[in-house]
Each structure stands twice: as C-alpha cells, then as structure tokens.
C-alpha cells in the first residue's frame, strides 16, 4: 500500500515537472496553463480574498439548494415507499422529469428568478431533488420485510415504525444517494453560474466560482486562473464526497 502511494506521487510529480518544462521551452503561455502559473494564480486570488469568497458563494448556493431538495425529495420518496399507490401515481412523472437535464432548465430559471443567485439555487435543487426522491423510494422498498413485520408484531404503529425502522433502514442507501446527488448539485451550480453569470461587474452577476471563470474568460483572459478554478472545482467535489462518506460512518455505525 505504502509503495503504491509512493509510485503514484512520483508519477504525478514527474508529469507536473515535464509539463512545466514543456510550457517554458516554447511560447504556448497564453493558451495553456502552467503549474507555476497556477500556483501564482492561487496565491494572488487567495491573497485578495476573491477565491475563498467565490468558493464560499458557490458552496453556500449548493448547500441551500441541496437543503431544499432534501426537504422535498426525502419525504416524498419515503412516502412513496410507504404507500405504493402514491408511488404508482408519482413515479412516472418523476422519471419523465429526470430525463430533462438540469442545465436545460437554466433559461426558464433565469426567466423566473433573474440572474442573481436564485436561478442557480433553483438548478441545484432541481439537480438534487429527483435522485434524492427516487433513492428514498428505493431505500424504503429495500428494507427487509421481516423487520417491518417484527415492528408491527411488537406493537409499533406506523409512526414508530417510520422513526425506528424505515428511516434508520434507509440511511445506508440514502448516504450513497446524498453523495451522488451532491456531486450532481455541485456540477449543476458551476454550470448555472457559468450560464447566468454573464453580467459582468461588481454586484451584477451571480458571484461564485462559475462567475469567476466567466469573468476570467471574457475580461482577463487568464488561462492560469481558469485552470485554478477547475482545480478548485475538483477539490471541492472530493471534499464533498469525503464529507458525505464520513457522515455515513457516523450515522450508520451498524454498517461496518
């Protein structure tokens, strides 16, 4: 395991070095980012506070949109799992909606909510709510019928069964769903900010990391900063995933 890690690190270091040498050797500077350039861009944007603030704006938007999505999607999906008639009524509708990609909603979201931040929150909510609802539905259906029978035979009504059997029984599936839909949500917020953030200028656009990329592209044309933004998008994705996995371990200790 340790040796594998060293091999991986060595490979990455070699690639980065070769990359830097190649860029320095010929004048591709304007179109291709260089490792040193990215480091400089990070230093500059951290120093003036613009990178942390852009990441914070995007992340808060994801958090807000995701919270709304969870508040709608999880109860709806759980209710679908508990009442098959509701599931049969609603599932085809949700499946149909799912075939429309979140970014296809951007124009109508802008029409309804303007170009500030709310359109992006809407897109995030939309991107996360369907996978959450469908997973919650699936999670309830996957619960061992014997556990539900045991709960009823021990005298539990529907509310205790929901609280003590259905919800804890759903958690392992839901953790996976949260990881996946958080990923969708983060991807959607970047797309939404890119698309709605075309109004340039302080306080005009949507802010966020997507906005920063658009501004960099059209105004400053700084390829190193663009690469820095992409790198940050990836790092935040990893952090979200690790966070959700940690949450899963915390919430489901019986799953070793």
């Amino acid at each position, binding site marked *: 395991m340790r040796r594998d890690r060293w091999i991986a690190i060595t490979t990455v270091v070699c690639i980065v070095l070769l990359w830097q040498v190649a860029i320095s050797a010929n004048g591709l500077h304007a179109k291709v980012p260089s490792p040193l350039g990215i480091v400089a861009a990070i230093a500059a944007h951290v120093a003036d506070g613009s990178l942390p603030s852009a990441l914070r704006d995007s992340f808060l938007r994801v958090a807000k949109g995701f919270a709304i999505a969870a508040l709608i999607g999880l109860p709806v999906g759980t209710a679908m799992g508990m009442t098959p008639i509701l599931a049969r009524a609603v599932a085809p509708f949700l499946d149909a909606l799912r075939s429309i990609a979140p970014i296809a909603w951007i124009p109508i979201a802008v029409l309804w909510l303007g170009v500030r931040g709310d359109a992006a929150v809407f897109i995030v909510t939309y991107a996360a709510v369907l996978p959450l609802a469908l997973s919650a539905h699936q999670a309830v259906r996957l619960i*061992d019928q*014997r*556990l539900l*029978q*045991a*709960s*009823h*035979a*021990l*005298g*539990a*009504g529907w509310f*205790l069964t929901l609280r*003590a*059997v259905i919800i*804890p*029984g759903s*958690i392992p599936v839901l953790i996976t769903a949260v990881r996946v839909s958080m990923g969708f949500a983060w991807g959607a917020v970047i797309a939404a900010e890119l698309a709605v953030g075309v109004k340039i200028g302080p306080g005009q656009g949507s802010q966020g990391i997507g906005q920063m990329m658009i501004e960099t592209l059209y105004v400053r044309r700084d390829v190193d900063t663009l690469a820095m933004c992409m790198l940050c998008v990836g790092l935040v994705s990893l952090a979200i995933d690790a966070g959700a996995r940690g949450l899963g371990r915390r919430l*489901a*200790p*019986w*799953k*070793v």
Partner: protein
Amino acid sequence: MEGLIPRIAITSLGKTWQGRRGDVEALRDINLAIGPGEFVAVVGPSGCGKSTLLSVVAGFATPTSGKVLVDGLSVDGPSPERGVMFQDYALFPWRTVADNIGFGPLARGVKRAERLEITQRLVALVGLDGFQDRYPHELSGGMRQRCALARMLANDPAVWLMDEPLAALDPQTRIVMQDELLRIWGDERPADQRRAVLFVTHGIDEAVHLSDRVVVLARRPGRVRAVIEVDLPRPRSALRSSPEAARLVAEIWALIRDEAVDAIREENG
C-alpha cells in the same frame, strides 16, 4: 386439552397466494386448536406451508378461507399479544441488544424506568449479561437468537409463534438453545404457568424433544396429515435420547419421507 378453551383456534383455514405465475394453494382446510400452556410443533416437507400457517396466525397474511381465533378474537393483523420469533431473528441492526429488547415495551408506551427494568430482567433471563450495548452484527448466532427471544418475551405475549427459530444455529448451539427455550418457557414449572407455543421446524427430533403435540403437514397444498401426541414427561432435557422419543421420531419420519424425497427431487429440477 379437552374442556379448555383453546388459545389458538384454527378452523377450516385455507390460504392461496396470488402470484404472477398463477395462484399457489399453500394451505387447505387446516383445523388445529392449541390450548393454554401447550407446546405444539409443526413439521413437514419443504412446501407444506408451515411458514404460511405461522404468517396467518401472526396476522402478516390474511386467510383465503376459514378463520383463526386467538383467545376468541379473530386475527386481523399483527398484535403484541402474539409474539413472533423469526427464522433469521429479524433483529433491528441499528439498535443495540437492549434497545431491540426494549422495542416492544417502547411501542406499547411503557415508561422508561419500567422499560429498563424489563430489559435488564430479560437480558439476565436469556444470558446476555454484558452484551446490552452491542449491536446484533457483533453477536454470535446463538446470542442473536437469545436476543430475539428476549425481544419477543418483553411484551409477555399470550402466545409464542416461532418460525424455525433454531434453524440457523450450529448443531451444538441448537441443542443448548432447545433446552434454554424449554427452561424459559417453563418446562420445569406447572403447565398453567406456561404460554401456548406454535413452533415451526424442520427438525423432527427437535419437534419431539420440545413439544406436547407434533402436527405433521402434507404438501401441495399443505394439509394436516397427522397429529402425534408426545407423551414424554417434563422436564425433558434428560430425555434427549430416550427410546420412546426415538420411536416417535421414526414414526413421524415415516409419514414425511416420501414427500420429502419428492420435494428434494422437484427442487433439483
């Protein structure tokens, strides 16, 4: 058992499962009465509907015809009056041993202090001291089985419905648990301090060792083929290999053998 009002009265019970590939008649015209304090085992070849019978009495499935009365009342769903023990225990994986055992009292609205008292008493009764705070996946098969038994007992149900509760145990643990079960049921106490038990099992020797009567079911559809009285004295733990028990086992096996062979042949294609 004559003269006593039965705890469980099953009359002309029929159950047909409706499936996508047509209907399956699982039970036909079952008549059976279980008296207070009586231990009745149900045996039969695969596909004889013994688990279906238990499901109907537990209230998990509704009869297609006939009826099931428990203490004179028609069964129309699960009830804490009828304790159920499942083949694979069906313990709640996210609740500790103590919280599994306390679930029934919690569901019935028993106050916290009393719940703790019940849980502690049962933990001691089934021999799980020191394991209250473990999760089911941290327990051995025999300990899970003890936990499931304690969970059922926490409601002090009038009847015990047990669906192959010892089937998943290794042979030695099974023998230990059979005698544990008898002890907890009240093998050494007078009959009026015992509960009525309907015990479904694959093991003919187990059925003979534990019960007062063995109901032998025939398969496809499940019907009562014979009811064998087990007239062995209690407590039973010393009688494990008595000639009388061996004779009864042989008698019951003779009733089942041909059908059991058929069942195995069908399962193998």
